[in-house]
């Protein structure tokens, strides 16, 4: 039980841990990945919110997945830092502090950069995974993504999540 608590703390650590945002070699601010992701994920795919797909829960799940290596998990976290640093450099504000129009402008600008395109693509692939996941994973309880595309899942459905 103690170990489980410790494990849960570490898992939760991804979304609640602090990312240090630098600007011109100085610490500008600190932000938790959760603060950025909670807005960024729906900026990238607002339909997930309408479909009641819990993207935040999926990103937490990814952080504890046995088949996603540590480098990938670090990359997800580092990307949050880079996006915020870009926001600070252009607008002198953190990503979540920007109005929607400015956030979209920033995403457009970031997507033209090699690191930005790669990172946004990665986020989108995880968003798609969440949107079309089986309800057993707990993030897409109504198969909303599948219904949206009139997609018929194969049977049988999984009896347990593979983590």
């Amino acid at each position, binding site marked *: 039980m103690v170990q489980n608590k410790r494990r849960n703390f570490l898992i939760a650590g991804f979304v609640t841990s602090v990312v240090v945002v630098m600007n011109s070699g100085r610490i500008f601010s600190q932000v938790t990945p959760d603060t950025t992701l909670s807005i960024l994920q729906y900026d*990238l*795919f607002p339909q997930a919110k309408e479909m009641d797909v819990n993207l935040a829960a999926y990103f937490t799940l990814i952080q504890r997945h046995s088949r996603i290596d540590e480098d990938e998990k670090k990359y997800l976290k580092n990307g949050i830092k880079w996006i915020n640093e870009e926001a600070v450099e252009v607008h002198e504000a953190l990503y979540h502090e920007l109005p929607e129009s400015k956030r979209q402008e920033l995403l457009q600008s970031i*997507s033209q950069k090699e690191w930005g395109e790669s990172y*946004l693509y990665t986020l989108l692939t995880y968003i798609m995974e969440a949107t079309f996941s089986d309800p057993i*994973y707990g993030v897409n309880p109504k198969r909303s993504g599948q219904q949206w595309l009139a997609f018929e899942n194969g*049977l*049988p459905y999984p009896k347990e999540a*593979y983590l």
Partner: protein
Amino acid sequence: MIYDVCIIGSGAGGSPIAYELSNAGFNVVVLEKGKYYKEEDFSKDELAVSRRDMFTPNLQDEFHIINEYKPSGNFTRYSGKESGWNFWNSSMVGGSSNLMSGYFHRMKPNDFQLRSSYGEIQGANVVDWPISYEDLEPYYDKVERVVGVSGRVVEHKYQEPRSSKEFPYKMLEVNGVTEWFDKACEEMDYVSIPTPRAVLSEDALGRKGCYYSNFCGSYGCSSGAKGGARAALLQRCKAEVISEAFVYRLESDATKVTKAYYYDKAKKSHTIEAKIFVLSAQAIESVRLLFNSKNTHFPNGLANSSGELGNNLIFSAGGSGSGRFVFEKLTQKQQKELMQVGLFFNRSLQEWYDYDDGCRNYKGGTIDFLFEHQNIISRVNRELYDEEGNLLWGQALAERLHKRLTTSRVLTFEVFNDWLPTDNCNVRVDEKTKDKWGVPVGMINLNSHPHDLEVGKHLAIKAAELLKKMGAIKVEYSISSAPPPNLVAGGCRFGEDATKSVLDKNCKAHDLKNLYVSDASFMPTGGSVPYTWTIYANSFRIAQKILATLKT
């Protein structure tokens, strides 16, 4: 306890032998590295099966070293642990046959005599097989009946001789778009071949018929209709199966293998003694085990007095292509046919199994046609960019996804042609790099012959023309020298000459009295078809040879 036969690996190469010998009353044990999954354990969970590779080893634990050769002779080294490049197919009882699509084509008579039929090709180590199509035909036939193959025989210029007039099981049901395909073939004077499948179309052999789940290839079968080695053979015989048993060494004296050593999942070592050992861990891992079993009698690797162990690794050459059918160009009836899910496409062409370009006769190959895999996450991920190559998100992405996936569908094709064996395509072990068991990992040297690309392109162009004739748009193809990990063979060539081959014509090691290798590693050339049917057939053939030995 001394078993009559110990089989290492439980896939298509090992299971026919387990089935035949245990049913003949012999004491057979099968050692399998993976878990024992059964029908009730399988689901169509794309995240688990296709995105997180639940049936293959974690690459942080088990991986390969891959050296990719360039035409200059230089190579780039990749560690599978870091690059993610791997050659695992499926680690479970029944092996990768659990996850196959089961497109079953026999090799043709000329495939057994590639060198005699088509001549020498510079830079390629092409040889004839020591057996003929006639030697293997009774076993192809046996596979149809015992494993279960469904289809319909149609006459065409490369139809191989058959001892049975028809397949024992009727064709699986097909999607209405196959009629468009058949019509286009007729207009182009091609013979449309209903692709034979190792999938039961009805309840038979103690198994359920196909329930058209829409998710066949890459997934385990929940009805047992798919003729995987576990469902069709291991569950129908009395062979003892020990799962989660990783064989890391074979012990031998100068003439015989005496013991197999394996680790269980807790890394506790065990030994098995048997009169006869059969190795069938797939080409790369079988070769790896023989190298890792070197001893004072065989200092260069077990059964390697010829120095040929690991040489002439081959794959299926070719590639794939696709075309998209869009609602705007279809009638309402056609739209409905296009979006009909669950049913198979199951069409092939072998019009160019060999062909003449005016200068010389070429060995060609097979083209299988099938709908784009239904994996929804993979399909939406392919739509993340627009036609100009810009990443999409937000409303623009949503609109694209909805239109593409609800008003169009992609028909794909796969080209299978010979991967010519060459000096720089082989398997070794990297003594300095070890897996989680502390065992040196397999090192795969990759090289392809330019001839493979030339033939593959010829076939792909023909397939693309057919898709256009059917009315597809955005027709494209990709023929490359990238090796498909699920279509691997060679490394333990069989042959008459013990100085130039590892195995004799019965797939027994030249060097040892009681070691057989029964996966695809025996193959000197691979034919221009997927390998599984040939692996099954050859394993049934070897079973008869071993049976004769055990009875004497």
